[in-house]
């Protein structure tokens, strides 16, 4: 933990975005996590992504549960809405908030304990319902706040800092999300900023349940030899299936690619996901093939990262429920309680 405030001075040449904010305007308080925590890198990636997307901070809501990961919303987007709730219950709170005000951008921040243990049921239903959100799991494979016990995502055979070996099978949240109906699924690594920032941007611009499993080394308890979530291990076993550029309206990147190298996916809001293929034949629109591929590579000991699945024309919870376009929290008494006559007419329609 750092005691001095981050100085207010900024680089005199710092760029500003289309709405006049510099990157540092998207920062939050100085992190109280351990020095070098992977989670801080993810916070920085979120800051960068929101800056690059020109997001007005007051249009973003950050929700989280309990754990190191769930503390991080304090460390980014200091001018946005935030709600730090009960352990594992972030998905319910986010779903409720989204139902009440569909106009905000929802950023659910969770960890492997919060989502894969106590909140696994919540995680499943939130994905299944396809709530329009970004759901990031900051996955370090241990319970960092309670001194590094294995979490439910720890790999079988992984070695704890005290030498104990994990005999249990891990929960693969990416595989679960794919199976449960998430419409944007990606995996990344906190130590690869160049990959992570475009993924966060793509997830924000995606309409539907966007899930990012981000491996985030716990510097205090899970960054040793034998760990499968250490900086060194992930760097050695990281196999990206693609590299992503997100193109939103202006500022188009014009780079020359050989045919077949690049795939462009147009999303619902018109933004373009430009994927440079790294693994030949990998099609991020084929959910079944993606699941198979992931299982194969996992068996080979690789950590597959990149955009793993995207359904560009996904329908979200509001589509399923056929709610009105106006956010419910903006409706007045007359619209919400149209009176006895309207109720009678409605009931008559069901007879």
């Amino acid at each position, binding site marked *: *933990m*750092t*005691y*001095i*405030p*981050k*100085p*207010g*001075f*900024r*680089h*005199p*040449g*710092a760029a500003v975005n289309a709405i006049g904010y510099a990157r*540092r305007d998207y920062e939050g308080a*100085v*992190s109280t996590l*351990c*020095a*070098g*925590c*992977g989670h*801080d*890198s993810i*916070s*920085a990636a979120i800051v960068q992504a929101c800056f690059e997307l020109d997001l007005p901070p007051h249009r973003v809501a950050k929700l989280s549960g309990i754990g190191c990961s769930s503390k991080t919303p304090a460390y980014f987007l200091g001018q946005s809405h935030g709600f730090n709730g009960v352990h594992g219950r972030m998905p319910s709170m986010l779903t409720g908030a989204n139902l009440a005000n569909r106009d905000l951008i929802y950023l659910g921040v969770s960890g492997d304990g919060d989502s894969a243990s106590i909140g696994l049921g919540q995680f499943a239903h939130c994905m299944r319902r396809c709530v329009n959100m970004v759901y990031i799991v900051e996955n370090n494979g241990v319970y960092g706040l309670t001194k590094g016990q294995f979490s439910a995502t720890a790999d079988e055979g992984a070695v704890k800092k005290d030498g104990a070996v994990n005999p249990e099978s891990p929960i693969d949240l990416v595989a679960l999300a794919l199976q449960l109906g998430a419409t944007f699924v990606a995996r990344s690594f*906190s*130590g690869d*900023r160049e990959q992570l920032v475009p993924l966060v941007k793509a997830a924000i611009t995606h309409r539907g349940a966007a899930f990012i499993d981000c491996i985030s*080394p716990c*510097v205090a308890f899970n*960054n040793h030899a034998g760990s499968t979530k250490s*900086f*060194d291990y992930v*760097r050695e076993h990281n196999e990206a299936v693609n590299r992503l550029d997100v193109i939103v309206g202006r500022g188009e990147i014009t780079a020359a690619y050989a045919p077949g190298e690049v795939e462009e996916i147009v999303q619902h809001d018109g933004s373009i996901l430009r994927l440079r293929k790294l693994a030949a034949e990998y099609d991020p629109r084929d959910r079944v093939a993606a699941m198979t591929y992931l299982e194969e590579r996992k068996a080979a000991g690789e950590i597959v990262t990149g955009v793993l699945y995207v359904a560009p024309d996904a329908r979200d919870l509001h589509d399923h429920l056929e709610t009105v376009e106006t956010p419910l929290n903006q409706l007045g008494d007359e619209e919400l309680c149209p009176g006895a006559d309207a109720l009678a007419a409605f009931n008559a329609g069901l007879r």
Partner: protein
Amino acid sequence: MRPTDIRSPEYFHKVVDCQWACPAHTPVPEYIRLIAARQYTDAYMINWKSNVFPGILGRTCDRPCEPACRRVRVEKEPVAICRLKRVAADHKEDVRGLLPRVPAEKNGKRIALVGAGPASLTVARDLLPLGYACVIFDADPKAGGMMRSQIPKFRLPEEVIDEEVGYILEMGVEARFGHHVDSMRALLREPYDAIFVGSGAPRGRDLDLPGRQAAAANVHVGIDWLANVSFGHVHRIGERVVVLGGGNTAMDCCRSARRLGGQDVRVVVRSGFEEMKASPWEREEAVREGIPILNYLVPLEFTVERGRLTGVLFEKVRAVYDANGRRELVPTGEPRIHMPCDDVLIAVGQETAFPWIERDLGMEFDRWDRPVLDPVTMQSTLPRVFFGGDAAFGPKNIIWAVAHGHEAAISIHRLCRGEDVHDRLPPTVNLVSQKMGIHEWSYDSEISPDERYRVPLAPQAVALKNIAVESELGFDERLAFLEAQRCLNCDVQTVFTGSRCIECDACVDICPMDCITFTANGEEEDLRARLRAPARNLTQSLYASDALKSGRIMVKDEDVCLHCGLCAERCPTGAWDMQKFLLDMAQATDVPKHACAHR
């Protein structure tokens, strides 16, 4: 890009912009921290060792350190380094016990010093503790040179000069004051082992315009007039005074005139206001005292009636730039302007003068009639004769004179020991971690957002009545502390150890100024363009590491680093550390100071 060699003393020295810019390389942040800690005596002694005249320089220095201050690149104004130096001098305790001891037994060598200004006094201070006999000649009745004769008392009180010059005289200088040296040949015949010429630039330029001779009684050469004021020969000036020239001497002239009866004092310069040579703060003071500065006016004639000056005639000009950017002043064709006045002060420059050095002694002079010197050793082509201060390379300022003096003293010492004067010791360098605990540093790493504090001034009603009243009051302890806290501690260096780095990006994310980037290596020019914040200031170095585990390198742009230490605080492995870099210039000494010499 090749990994930066931080073992070279130059690398980190350059990061301490103020120290790098100072001719004497005074360790500025080191003494500013001591001022913040109210250790004024210690702060004074660091200065005294390096620049010999902290109290004088704290009032009069040309302060090359301030425009260099990193704070200028981060916000608007530099730390008030010069005025903090004065704080150390004002608030110190008696330092006499801390001054070097002069041995009773001399080494048998005699040195003649011509001129008792800052350069010669520095040479004497450096050589007396080594057992030399130093004989100082000056035509003036007291020591101090231009510090006493040309700087007005309202900027530099006499007692400050007496004190700091006194420290050196009391070391046992043999003073020959009121003695004009008029022959180098004669001096060379006397039994001196070396001669140091620190005779300044005593000749003020004149303006040979029509009417100059007829108006002689009321047209004065600026530096001569200032000297006459200083030594009490002149007490009054006319009510209407025109000062010609735009340098610091002109500012001293006009402000002095204002205090000696001048009511309508004005400064007239040939070129534009922006091109004036005077330091901005001196200009500001003049303007504040109600002295207008009129520009683009070229003097044509001193008008005289019945043998008495009546005014100055000017022609209005404008600046025209040719294709090479060279400026020419072209008359605008407007009617000439006659400025009526009672006195004129000419402050259009000064130059060295060596009528007393015979030209058949084997000493070479260049085409500007200046002695040919080695710029490092200050040695002339006569091996026994050295120069320093304004006498060496023309008018500069006190701090340069001190720097020359130190170098000349080293040369003289080596010459007298029969050693090669070019064989000189490098500076001593010390680089020590400031870490005291997990988040504890032995320096105050928090960055003050305060703007520069103004030095309190004496009320004008008082200051303008008496030329001996110091116009600046100096910072009190509270203001000094607040101003000292603005220092960014640029000497506490960010030192990177690549072998410890796990590339977690914590330093990149916490850095408030986007100084740090981890990226693929490349040529410096290419790297500068693709850092987290482009490194456009080419005068500032990039600090590059060797290849890290991932194959990338760490690159830090030194330009706007605040030295807040957050990179080191957020580093989980100690790959970043904050280490204090202390560079001490070599001075004349008998015992080599660096440890490896003590075999």
